[in-house]
């Protein structure tokens, strides 16, 4: 009897847990859709900005902007690591952290001191546990907003211009598609031409084809092209960092969706197994009682 009751209790507990994980999965799905919308909504801005930079690339400008090359001979790296504030999202944070630590150790190993800027509570907890040095950034919340990311970008740009750091990297979970997210390291500064996405066409800063395309349009500029570029490039850096945050947020929700789906499925399997066990225990006790009765009846005769 005791065994039976215990099984019933466990099955009830697992059922409740399944309810919770299923709800969390649904929430993650809804959040993912909202985040995905934000990523799509930010695309026009970055595309237009790249187009404007290209429009300038055709003009004969002395590209001597301070964001294109390092300002100090002493190499020093700043790395922004984007992790999540909440757990229960499978291997999401672990994957980001592994890539981050690999990158940091490699940079430090080649003799470049590396300042780590850790975004997200999970990464902060992990680095505290490892007793590694970092700057903690935990005020950004779950939905990245441009107005909160912008100051961070501005600070990085300022430090780069002052020569305090010579490179800036970002480690985050890149969103390739619904079924594919990979941790990635990108170089934010010095500004490098964006990697060409499949079918996106040339988007490099001032090379061959784009230079020709840009040269066909005679723009009116204000202020002069050089000054304009000085404004456009920081804007490019800001939007790139913002895009990293958005992609990380989308990837986080996908990871949570997958993890919660797995948990719900596992709970379902467990309920099945427990039900089988319970039925067997029930059948055993019935058989025992029957045997008792038959045995008693036989003894009476």
């Amino acid at each position: 009897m005791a065994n039976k009751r215990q099984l019933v209790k466990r099955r009830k507990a697992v059922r409740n847990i399944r309810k919770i994980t299923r709800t969390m999965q649904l929430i993650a799905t809804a959040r993912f859709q909202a985040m995905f919308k934000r990523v799509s909504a930010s695309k026009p801005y970055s595309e237009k900005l790249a187009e404007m930079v290209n429009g300038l690339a055709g003009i004969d400008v002395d590209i001597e902007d301070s964001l294109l090359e390092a300002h100090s001979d002493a190499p020093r790296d700043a790395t922004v690591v984007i992790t999540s504030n909440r757990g229960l999202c499978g291997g999401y944070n672990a994957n980001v952290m592994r890539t981050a630590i690999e990158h940091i150790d490699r940079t430090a190993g080649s003799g470049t001191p590396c300042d780590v800027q850790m975004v997200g509570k999970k990464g902060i907890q992990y680095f505290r546990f490892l007793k590694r040095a970092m700057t903690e950034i935990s005020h950004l919340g779950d939905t990245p907003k441009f107005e909160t990311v912008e100051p961070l970008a501005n600070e990085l740009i300022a430090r780069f211009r002052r020569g305090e750091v010579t490179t800036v990297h970002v480690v985050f979970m890149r969103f390739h598609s619904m079924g594919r997210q990979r941790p990635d390291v990108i170089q934010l500064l010095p500004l490098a031409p964006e990697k060409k996405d499949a079918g996106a066409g040339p988007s490099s800063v001032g090379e061959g084809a784009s230079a020709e395309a840009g040269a066909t349009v005679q723009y009116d500029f204000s202020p002069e092209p050089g000054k304009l570029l000085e404004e456009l490039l920081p804007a490019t850096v800001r939007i790139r960092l913002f895009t990293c945050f958005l992609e990380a947020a989308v990837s986080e929700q996908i990871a949570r969706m997958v993890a919660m789906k797995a948990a719900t499925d596992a709970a379902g399997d467990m309920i099945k197994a427990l039900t089988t066990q319970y039925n067997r225990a029930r059948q055993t006790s019935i058989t025992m009682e029957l045997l008792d009765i038959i045995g008693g009846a036989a003894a009476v005769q």
Partner: protein
Amino acid sequence: MATDRQFHCSVITPEREVLSAEATSVVFPAQDGEVGVLVDRAPLLFALGIGVLRIDGEKGSQRFFIDGGFAQMLDNNLTILTSQALAPSEIKADKVRQLLSEAEAMSITDDASWIARDKAIRRAKEQLKLAEQVG
């Protein structure tokens, strides 16, 4: 300036496309004053300042507070990229006033902080002006 010919105007922030509409005339704040754009304007690429963007089109006149950014006119397509575009109804006067007093209290130690203070004050004042004009 009633012309029946229109051009396309879109206002884009990093977070969303705020507006995409046909317009007959657009006035935007450049860094050294306001610039007006009409249909068939020659291609332009301008850096924007802090101020009020005015778009006259089919839906009447629309105003936005914009905070820096860039404007591009190409083939009758005007694109305004800005980090922030606020419609008058989105401006919270109380909060802006608080920001203004905070900005005025900022200490000036060097050129950079002077510029930062100046920008913050202008940002707040332009928003207030726009909110008062409409509201």
